[in-house]
């Protein structure tokens, strides 16, 4: 295979890897594209949504997105689905059987591994799925290749009748680089869906006939990988050579420009003969893989001598500095060993925080005030509740896990925990993604769990994307909006155990939570205020602190709003001789949007409406827009 499409006459573009994938989908004449948002893959579908010839959607989860793509492929159309690494875990049930069916229209799964864990609960290597599902894996090393390889993936998929995995990593998705697009694919007339139960209905009798065909396909794909110009030798010094795929190729070229390199773009099935031939002329051969020693085990089993994870880390990015330190030993002469040149004091951490006026602030302030709780959390902005000042999250595992884990905490409780209240916290989009089943398990199995369903009508953490709770689809068109009280009642929660509460009304929220945790049943408390990153949120008059009225109690700081700043601290000695730390505050009026949460925590009523509004910089950096 060496069929890179000819460059079109368009001028050079400067785009991210994610946008390059979307342009490739456009030019490959994809008909259907589906995804659930997830860093670092989210933007792929946001870009695709702008192309009117492609049907695109936010699916409710990654498994459904793959199923939609599968259906489109069986209908004879090219289809793409995109997801982050943990999303492919969810989608894998469909993938593992679809590989037996193969593909009719080109079927491409774009998976983005968060190497370096910028915004994920784990760091896993999706190349395993290529082995597990017997499908080819393509690994672009830059923006141009993200485009080219995605185009090629569709050709491969149709030529060999297989789903194809395009593996991206954070430093492909979110790096902008040069791109020259190529001529669009010629439209091909397809026959439409052709019934073929022996192939499309995977019952045991049919599936067992497909397995030998899949094995035959493995052999054909191996030949294709051996012949592919995506697997290319760059001859350099024979003293030092690298086998490398993905963005790590760039790091190798940066650190060792003189070395020989076998760059694997079509990395599974591994082109063993090409690798063996390359390895024979190299004195020191190093295999550079982000993250797991996957290819290393395969090559060592083939008797190919090389170094890999014995010297390289199996976590994080393999940047030039990491490579040099590993390959030359830590004593090696790095050009400017920075930590030896500059000593500075450790700067405070700046962890991600909840936005100014975020409705979750009221929820976590309340949770931090309720005693004797075990709080089972979920994946989303509310995971930030584990941090300061709330410290009100005890578990976070995977999308939708909060309720199943809560049920286990309830049913598995030891005597020591008999007085503990078990609470689940989950957002609207996560609930619809994979949480509904967990709630049904709670009601069916008579759990004693209080569920906080934080409905902000958006996928907040990835930037406020729409979901079935938004009433708006990917294209911004009006659609259904899930009725959560009705939904949770349909899942077995009793009418009197369902409460809809405004999270800015602290006394009501506190009372409802305290009352419901006392009831031995499943309760659901739904909060009903929108994500501040979305257009549904309307800013109100900002607040300020009357300095003369502030008594330094610091209660308002426990809300955790980033617009509340300490202006000065004092230590006072109380009549009983003990010392008390006072923190006097002010409010960044330019950032404040007047949600009034902090007002309820202020004893001396020092927080009052501000008269003037300054728009701009500080408001922007805190993620809130103010109209002046």
């Amino acid at each position, binding site marked *: 295979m060496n069929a890179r499409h000819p460059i079109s006459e368009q001028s050079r573009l400067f785009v991210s890897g994610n946008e390059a994938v979307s342009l490739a989908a456009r030019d490959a004449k994809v008909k259907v594209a589906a995804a659930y948002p997830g*860093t670092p893959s989210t933007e792929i579908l946001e870009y695709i949504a702008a192309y009117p010839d492609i049907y695109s959607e936010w699916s409710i989860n990654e498994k459904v997105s793959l199923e939609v793509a599968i259906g489109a492929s069986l209908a004879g159309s090219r289809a793409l689905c995109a997801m982050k690494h943990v999303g492919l875990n969810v989608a894998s049930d469909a993938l593992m059987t679809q590989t037996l069916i193969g593909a009719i229209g080109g079927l491409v799964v774009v998976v983005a591994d968060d190497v370096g864990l910028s915004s994920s609960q784990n760091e896993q290597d999706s190349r395993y799925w290529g082995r597990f599902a017997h499908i080819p894996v393509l690994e672009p090393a830059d923006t141009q290749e993200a485009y080219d390889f995605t185009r090629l993936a569709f050709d491969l998929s149709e030529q060999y009748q297989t789903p194809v995995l395009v593996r991206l990593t954070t430093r492909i998705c979110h*790096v902008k680089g040069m791109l020259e697009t190529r001529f669009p694919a010629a439209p091909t007339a397809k026959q439409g869906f052709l019934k073929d139960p022996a192939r499309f209905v995977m019952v045991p009798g049919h599936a067992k006939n497909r397995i030998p065909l899949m094995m035959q396909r493995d052999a054909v794909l191996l030949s294709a990988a051996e012949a592919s110009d995506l697997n290319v030798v760059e001859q350099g010094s024979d003293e030092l050579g690298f086998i490398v795929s993905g963005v790590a190729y760039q790091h190798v070229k940066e650190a060792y420009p003189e070395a020989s390199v076998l760059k694997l773009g079509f990395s599974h099935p591994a082109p063993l003969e090409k690798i063996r031939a390359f390895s024979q002329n190299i004195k020191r051969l190093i295999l550079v893989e982000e993250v797991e020693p996957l290819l290393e085990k395969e090559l060592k089993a083939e008797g190919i001598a090389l170094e890999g994870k014995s010297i390289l880390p199996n976590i994080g990015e393999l940047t030039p500095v990491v490579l040099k330190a590993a390959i030359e030993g830590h004593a090696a002469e790095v050009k400017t060993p920075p*930590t030896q040149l500059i000593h500075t004091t450790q*700067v405070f951490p700046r962890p991600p925080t909840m936005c100014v006026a975020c409705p979750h602030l009221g929820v976590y302030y309340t949770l931090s005030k309720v005693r004797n709780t075990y709080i089972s959390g979920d994946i989303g902005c509310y995971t930030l509740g584990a941090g300061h000042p709330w410290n009100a999250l005890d578990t976070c595992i995977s999308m939708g896990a909060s309720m199943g884990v809560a049920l286990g905490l309830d049913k598995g409780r030891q005597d020591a925990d008999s007085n503990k209240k078990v609470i689940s916290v989950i957002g609207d989009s996560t609930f619809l993604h994979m949480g509904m089943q967990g709630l049904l398990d709670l009601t069916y199995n008579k759990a004693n769990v209080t569920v906080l369903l934080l409905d902000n009508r958006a996928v907040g953490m990835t930037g406020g994307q729409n979901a079935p709770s938004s009433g708006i689809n990917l294209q911004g068109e009006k659609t259904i909006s899930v009725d959560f009280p009705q939904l949770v009642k349909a899942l077995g929660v009793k009418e009197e155990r369902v409460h809809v509460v405004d999270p800015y009304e602290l006394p009501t929220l506190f009372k409802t939570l305290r009352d419901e945790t006392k009831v031995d049943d499943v309760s659901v408390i739904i909060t009903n205020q929108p994500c501040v990153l979305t257009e549904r949120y309307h800013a109100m008059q900002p607040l300020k602190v009357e300095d003369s009225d502030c008594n330094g109690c610091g209660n308002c700081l426990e809300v955790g709003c980033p617009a509340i700043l300490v202006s000065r601290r004092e230590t006072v000695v109380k009549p009983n001789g003990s010392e008390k730390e006072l923190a006097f505050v002010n409010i960044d009026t330019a950032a404040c949007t007047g949600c009034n949460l902090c007002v309820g925590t202020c004893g001396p009523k020092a927080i009052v409406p501000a008269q003037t509004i300054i728009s701009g910089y500080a408001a922007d950096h805190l993620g809130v827009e103010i109209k002046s």
Partner: protein
Amino acid sequence: MNSATVTNILVAGIGGQGVMTAAEILSETAMSLGFDVKKTEVAGMAQRGGVVTSHVRFGQKVHSPSIAAGEADVLVAFEPAEALRWVTHLRPEGVAMVNTFRLAPPVVSIGLFDYPDDPVTEMKTSKREVHAFNAGALALELGDRRLVNTIMLGAIADQLPFDAEVLKASVLKRFQHKSQALLELNQKAFEAGRTAAKQN
């Protein structure tokens, strides 16, 4: 690592401060001059008030997208504690441009960590060339806090391997379809940044 031919600019600040826009403008400018350009940042949770850095690399051919510690030619810091955090990324002959307008995160507000006493003075002990001025206050004087971005780009305009006027043109290009007043304001801000950098 390709230091002779690749220019490395590290833009550092806090999510939403305009770090990515500044890096985008620098990248577009380098691209318009025919350079190979790569720009990277880690988004995702960074937009929640966390640290954000954007790496801009340009030259004949750029491989690795990220700037290694000790390899940055220019550090543009939108906040002084962030400047101190990233000063280790400067090469010995590198230049730091610092906005001294402080933004303390909640972990500092609630007293878990201290804000460094004097980040700029501490940076200067590193023997790097450090320019520092309050771009936040300057922006307010000019009438809009959002001008910080343009001011900081003006401040580094004379530290780059291309003419300051080229950068200025690409900054102003962003405003050419907006009001004349906004265009002039940004022009003024860019020049104010250049002047401030020379004086500090």
